[in-house]
């Protein structure tokens, strides 16, 4: 999130699209309601009439997978009616940048941007025009036909309300009503906010869905202001923190790209990962990257290795390699791994194409599964269709502590790092996760010390200073405070530096915690596991544990409650909430203001008023990107159909699907069981769009909540929602048992026949959509084999995973699976 949950109350218009906070983030609705009490309008755009829709002033249905068409139409509406926040757009976005004249838009180029060939883009023509010294050429009047603003206008001129209606199925009057209300926030004293979740990410155009909204927010001057921004309502308590921690193949902690094989030395790595700019006024914050890299390497190996040695030890991926989720399970299915950790995860139900995931695990020699309850992953070898006698995989299921049985912090979607305390011990022999990691690491290190092995120093030299050490030099209980301090960072040697804030000389002693990341060094004198958390645990103490109640601005920043990254800033990009002379666009809801110094929130990106510094300091050039040439599938979002879709062609262009997605049904990648339906042409076996979603009572795969009888009682099993019209067509009655099928598998479900779904009119054709929750799994069902001593749910649930149906296909940039729009059928149980 750019902003945070309480800040929703400062919005004048809130658009719920790609999320359903009333069901899935219920307490966030407190702040939506607060905004509405003050007169805010609530808009909800969703294929289904959700609980959030029921609370909205305007509900507009749209067909799953057509968000870019919907929002592209809004961009056209805003531009055509001159509703942009013009001063903001001119001062803070790249609207004025001149693009390479050779650049072509999809409307002039058969549905693809210039440079397309062989399944990917050569981005040479997406570049900017520069002067002799390399500075980007700009046209402040925004009239040059090659300037970003004119290109944007031209690109979305094709997204007429008529065209959008034919693609999305949204009635034209609803479309225009949403556009009109949302576009009203382009006035400097109005704030528009958008709340999204997996409804936007789980598409082959997921990143571009979000980009389209970012463009709208920039055009309306809604980024950086109170009540504005772009909010990802994330699905797990600490998925923000786990992402920050670099538990992904492509990033180290703090969003530093992992090294690739061609980056042979630390120096080369620093050069490749540190952006540069010729823009004279840009701060280009990422110029500090080498400090964060050096501090991270120190956090891995301390003084046991030089920085260069530490870099050498770190694993490097091949240039261009992709090891993301779908690729990982594809490799596992092909028998490429002998070992696997599923730590606090249940991929047998959460992974797209779960049948493939479950079969893949049978190819392993060993698997370690750490969890609170028995689950479909740890017990995959005795799941439906499995013959344990034929499965060689050795499985270790390790019991761990729940959140109230250990101490530590988690980070919410608003980036607030909040501390949790231990209430009781874990049951029986269960241990806190980090104690399990510690014990395991020590044993592995011992084996390498004793028996040697390839580059054994990478293992044996790892530091592990997380707590009080016994006479054996080892910790016997993981201390989360020590780890939080290492995230914050500290000096490894006595050092005198120029204080980046006061510009005075300042002495630090070995072991002193750094006050913030501005103090981290590139010479190896500081250690910090994750630079964005610098400031979380300082000489002033554990900032995440703070419970201060002050709110002097009345905006709900609560700067003394917990701690938010970065540097306790509550609204990111707040430098864009003031005009170039430093005056708030909206003095009544100003997150920062100038009185000879900045007041309010921790200022972001601004120099002194009038300094001319563009406020988007995490971008090398400093400007918000209406035009985003960094993505793999185009600098502007363009509507493409989901890979599996109910239409014969893309009405906007001859290019039906996102042209750069990685298809798993092509030779070389994918496997024999990666089937798709309705890709080239509609497949009558799977005539309905299917989407997945959540209910309030369950979490994720239900791996925890299905074992809690109160919750299992309230939501006991798999269901499928369908329209009254579709049920009539299929002869299905409310409450009947049905089977939902896709090209990958099938699940049993109870039919819920409801007016919450309505058939869509897509370009004159009736198109049905159905929806299923993804919280269920076989382990908590009654009618499965039980061994003596097996755990048995107090309240059984019914049905297996929705992901048995979803396809192995991902977003072109992130590879997040397209679980929100695929093709399926639904039939009465027992009917072929």
């Amino acid at each position, binding site marked *: 999130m750019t902003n945070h949950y309480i800040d929703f109350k400062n919005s004048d218009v809130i658009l719920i699209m790609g999320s359903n906070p009333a069901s899935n983030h219920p307490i966030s609705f407190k702040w939506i309601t607060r905004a509405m009490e003050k007169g805010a309008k609530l808009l909800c755009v969703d294929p289904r009439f959700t609980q959030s829709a029921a609370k909205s002033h305007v509900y507009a249905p749209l067909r799953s997978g057509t968000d870019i068409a919907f929002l592209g139409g809004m961009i056209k509406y805003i531009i055509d009616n001159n509703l942009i926040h013009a001063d903001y757009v001119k001062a803070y976005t790249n609207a004025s940048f001149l693009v390479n004249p050779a650049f072509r838009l999809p409307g002039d180029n058969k549905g693809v941007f210039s440079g397309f060939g062989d399944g990917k883009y050569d981005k040479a023509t997406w570049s900017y025009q520069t002067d002799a010294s390399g500075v980007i050429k700009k046209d402040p009047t925004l009239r040059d036909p090659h300037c970003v603003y004119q290109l944007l206008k031209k690109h979305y001129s094709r997204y007429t309300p008529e065209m959008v209606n034919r693609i999305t199925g949204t009635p034209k009057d609803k479309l225009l009503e949403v556009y009109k209300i949302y576009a009203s926030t382009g006035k400097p004293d109005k704030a528009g906010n958008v709340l999204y979740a997996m409804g936007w990410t789980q598409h082959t155009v997921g990143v571009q869905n979000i980009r389209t909204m970012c463009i709208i927010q920039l055009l309306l001057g809604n980024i950086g202001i109170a009540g504005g921004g772009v909010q990802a309502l994330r699905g797990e308590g600490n998925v923000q923190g786990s992402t920050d921690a670099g*538990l992904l193949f492509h990033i180290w902690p703090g969003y530093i790209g992992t090294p690739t094989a061609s980056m042979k030395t630390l120096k080369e790595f620093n050069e490749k990962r540190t952006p540069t700019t010729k823009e004279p006024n840009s701060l280009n914050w990422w110029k500090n990257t080498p400090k964060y890299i050096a501090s991270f390497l120190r956090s891995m190996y301390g003084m046991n290795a030089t920085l260069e040695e530490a870099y050498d030890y770190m694993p490097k991926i091949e240039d261009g390699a992709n090891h993301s989720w779908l690729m990982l399970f594809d490799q596992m299915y092909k028998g490429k791994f002998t070992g696997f950790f599923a730590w*606090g995860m249940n991929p047998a139900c959460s992974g797209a194409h779960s049948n493939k995931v479950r079969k893949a695990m049978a190819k392993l020699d060993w698997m370690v599964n750490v969890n609170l309850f028995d689950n479909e992953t740890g017990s995959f070898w005795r799941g439906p269709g499995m013959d344990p006698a034929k499965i060689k995989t050795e499985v270790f299921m390790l019991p761990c502590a729940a959140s*109230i049985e250990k101490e530590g912090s988690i980070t919410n979607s608003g980036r607030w790092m909040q501390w949790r305390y231990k*209430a009781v011990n874990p049951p029986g*022999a*269960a241990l806190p996760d980090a104690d399990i990691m510690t014990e395991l690491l020590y*044993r592995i290190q011992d084996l390498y010390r004793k028996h040697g092995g390839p580059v054994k120093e990478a293992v044996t030299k790892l530091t592990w200073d997380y707590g009080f050490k016994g006479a054996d030099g080892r910790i016997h209980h993981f201390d989360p405070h020590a780890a939080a301090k290492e995230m914050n960072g500290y000096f490894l040697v006595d050092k005198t530096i120029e204080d980046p804030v006061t510009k005075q000389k300042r002495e630090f002693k070995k072991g002193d915690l750094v006050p913030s990341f501005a103090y981290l060094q590139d010479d190896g004198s500081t250690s910090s596991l994750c630079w964005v958390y610098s400031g979380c645990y300082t000489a002033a103490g554990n900032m995440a544990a703070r419970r201060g109640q002050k709110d002097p601005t009345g905006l709900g920043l609560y700067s003394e409650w917990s701690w938010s990254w970065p540097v306790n800033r509550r609204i990111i990009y707040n430098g864009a909430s003031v005009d170039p002379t430093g005056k708030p666009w909206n003095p009544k809801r100003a997150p920062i203001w100038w009185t000879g110094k900045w007041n309010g929130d921790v200022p972001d990106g601004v120099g002194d008023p009038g300094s001319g510094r563009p406020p988007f300091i995490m971008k090398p050039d400093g400007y918000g990107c209406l035009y985003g040439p960094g993505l793999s599938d185009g600098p502007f979002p363009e509507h493409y159909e989901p890979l599996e879709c109910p239409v014969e062609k893309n009405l906007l262009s001859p290019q039906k699907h996102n042209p750069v997605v990685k298809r798993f049904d092509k030779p070389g990648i994918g496997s024999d069981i990666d089937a798709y339906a309705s890709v080239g042409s509609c497949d009558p076996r799977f005539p309905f769009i299917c989407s997945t979603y959540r209910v309030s009572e369950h979490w994720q795969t239900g791996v925890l909540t299905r074992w809690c009888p109160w919750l299992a009682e309230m939501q006991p099993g798999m269901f499928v929602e369908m329209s009254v019209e579709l049920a009539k067509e299929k002869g299905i009655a409310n409450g009947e048992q049905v089977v939902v099928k896709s090209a990958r598998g099938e699940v049993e479900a109870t039919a819920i026949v409801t007016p919450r779904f309505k058939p869509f009119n897509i370009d004159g054709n009736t198109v049905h959509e159905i929806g299923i929750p993804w919280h269920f799994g076989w382990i908590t069902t009654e009618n499965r084999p039980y*061994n003596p001593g097996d*755990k048995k749910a107090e309240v059984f649930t019914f049905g297996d995973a929705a992901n048995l149906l979803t396809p192995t296909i991902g977003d072109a940039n992130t590879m997040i699976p397209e679980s929100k729009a695929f093709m399926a059928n639904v039939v009465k149980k027992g009917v072929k």
Partner: protein
Amino acid sequence: MEVTRRGFLKISGFALASSGLGISLKPVSAYAQPLKIKYAKETTTICPYCSVGCSIIVSARNGKVVNTEGDPGSPISRGSLCTKGGSIYQMSVNKNRLDKPLYRAPNSAEWKEVSWDWALDKIAENVKKSRDKSFRARNGKGETVNRTEGIASVGSAALDNEECQVYQKFLRGLGLVYIEHQARI
């Protein structure tokens, strides 16, 4: 008028008793139940489910959770909880929690209870065997890559920050490159 919890019980008892219901509610006004959190130790926690970050007060007595409720001190949630947050009690007080390490041998049809020492020793040996077998120090071009290609990991957004950070350290220290978790799905 400030009304304490106990006082509220008395008032409502009185109001009901005088409302002509025809049943005696005298005991209610006479004996307010002792609070179930009496003598309990209170700690605060943050809900582990969605990403809103609601605060919860956990009351424990004799090492056992006796109550969980919304924490009015949190500016985010101000004491409110949803169905999931309101059920945290059952995450701890739950006879189905895994409480011993379990092991399933190759081709076996059942779990076997094992000790931590036995399980961790065996996992450590497995890790070393897999790493040593699949470790690649250099790629085809002779570039240093120092990676373990034969082990993968998924997890976890369900861990604390401090655990996530040291888990990535553990994994990258072992040379893993197939590192993924919930954020990707």
